[in-house]
């Protein structure tokens, strides 16, 4: 289980997360919605240990990310897909995917590479095994980013606005892969602006506003007039997203 308990994070005088609580159970897909600056990406960065907490704690399968000795174990259980892909530019797609399983999990290279090829095939990139990131489109790069995360066989997949840097066609490519992962039961914590997609694939939706977790509701209830929509801030956000 992934537990976020009363997490606080500030950058200087600016409070970005203010007492956030959240639990993600294996098999769940939880989407985090909220306007820009609401703290969504910071929450993901706190979960994967890129940001130090100012208060509270985050535990991934009993491993506390704030404790250096436990962080390595916590990171073996979660994997992050980034908005700007962050692929290693000097490595081929295969090398990008195989590096961490070989170096961190100490798995045999041949076995890892075989799995990496299968992963690339599953996202329609079997012909790009030896391609470098610079020779791929944005959508293809993000699919490689997803494969790189999945190669670690994570229990929790953290997705940080993974379609924000893509055009609509490439966004559709990536969302199709994520929908497939959701159907296969991959546990995902998904920061997004894709409200309709979040509605389709999520079990629960969390709404952050100015660092405060406003609601954490099952998807149906979130979009119900008596549920999430009863909150003026959420109604305003959703109506603005529809207009955009």
């Amino acid at each position, binding site marked *: 289980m992934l537990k976020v308990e009363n997490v606080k994070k500030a950058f200087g005088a600016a409070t970005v997360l203010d007492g956030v609580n959240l639990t993600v159970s294996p098999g769940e897909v939880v989407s985090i919605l909220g306007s820009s600056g609401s703290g969504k990406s910071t929450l993901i960065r706190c979960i*994967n*240990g*890129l940001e130090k907490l100012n208060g509270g704690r985050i535990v991934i399968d009993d491993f506390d990310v704030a404790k250096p000795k436990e962080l*390595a174990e916590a*990171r*073996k259980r*979660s*994997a*992050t897909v*980034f908005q*700007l892909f*962050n*692929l*290693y*530019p*000097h490595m081929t797609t295969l090398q990008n995917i195989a*590096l*961490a399983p070989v*170096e*961190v999990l100490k798995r045999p290279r041949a076995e890892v590479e075989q799995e990496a090829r299968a992963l690339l095939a599953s996202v329609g990139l079997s012909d790009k095994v030896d391609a*470098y990131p*610079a*020779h*791929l*489109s*944005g959508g293809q790069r993000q699919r490689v980013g997803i494969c*790189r995360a999945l190669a*670690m066989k994570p229990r929790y997949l953290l997705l940080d606005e993974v379609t924000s840097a893509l055009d609509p066609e490439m966004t559709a490519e990536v969302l199709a892969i994520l929908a497939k992962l959701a159907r296969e039961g991959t546990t995902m914590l998904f920061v997004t602006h894709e409200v309709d997609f979040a509605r389709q694939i999520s079990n629960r939706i969390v709404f952050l506003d100015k660092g405060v977790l406003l609601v954490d509701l099952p998807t149906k209830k979130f979009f119900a007039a008596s549920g999430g929509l009863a909150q003026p801030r959420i109604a305003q956000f959703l109506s603005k997203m529809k207009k955009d």
Partner: protein
Amino acid sequence: MRLDLTILAPYLGFLGQGAALTAVICLLSLAGAVVLGMLVAIARTSQTVWIRRLAFIYVDVFRNIPFIVQLFFFYYGLPEIGIYIDAITTGVIALSIAGGAYASDAIRSGILAIDNGILEAAEVSGLSKRVTFTRIVLPIALRTSVRPLGSVLINMILTSSILSTITVNELTGQAKIVASDTFRPFEVYAVLLVVYAALTWLVSIGISRLHKRLNRDLASEAA
């Protein structure tokens, strides 16, 4: 005065030996400078203050002292405290240390230019600092540092001529011998001018090609 290059014909092999020694000294010194430059570049990006300061002092000191003074210190000064090193080794060490100060700048710029997102991706996937440095940071930094490191090599080729002042008979040292043998300094040094210009021109072409080759996969063609 008449320019008569034929008087140099009997000395071509002799000058060739000098050119070969220049090449060997420069390649060894480049290797030394790159290794030293890498270590200093790491030290300059270290989180430990005293390591960072030490590295900055090294760079400042060796960039701000004339090379000939450094060379004389190593060759004539160190024996006074019981350290004897032969002339060629002294030349390689002095060029490596002086070149290392410039190489560290080139490599440090390469390290600092790496997108932070790439380092974060390595960190969250659990890669150790050693693996991140050897498999990600260094390969990218060296690729982007090829051109400035090439300038260090060219500067090294030019500076290596000073080694003739400590009895190293590299290209300039051999040329001095030929000039005193033939009493024709005009022809000898005219040829030397051309040889050095050609040598550095060829090296700069080689560096451009190497840079292009190493970075061809980093350049974006589609996005």
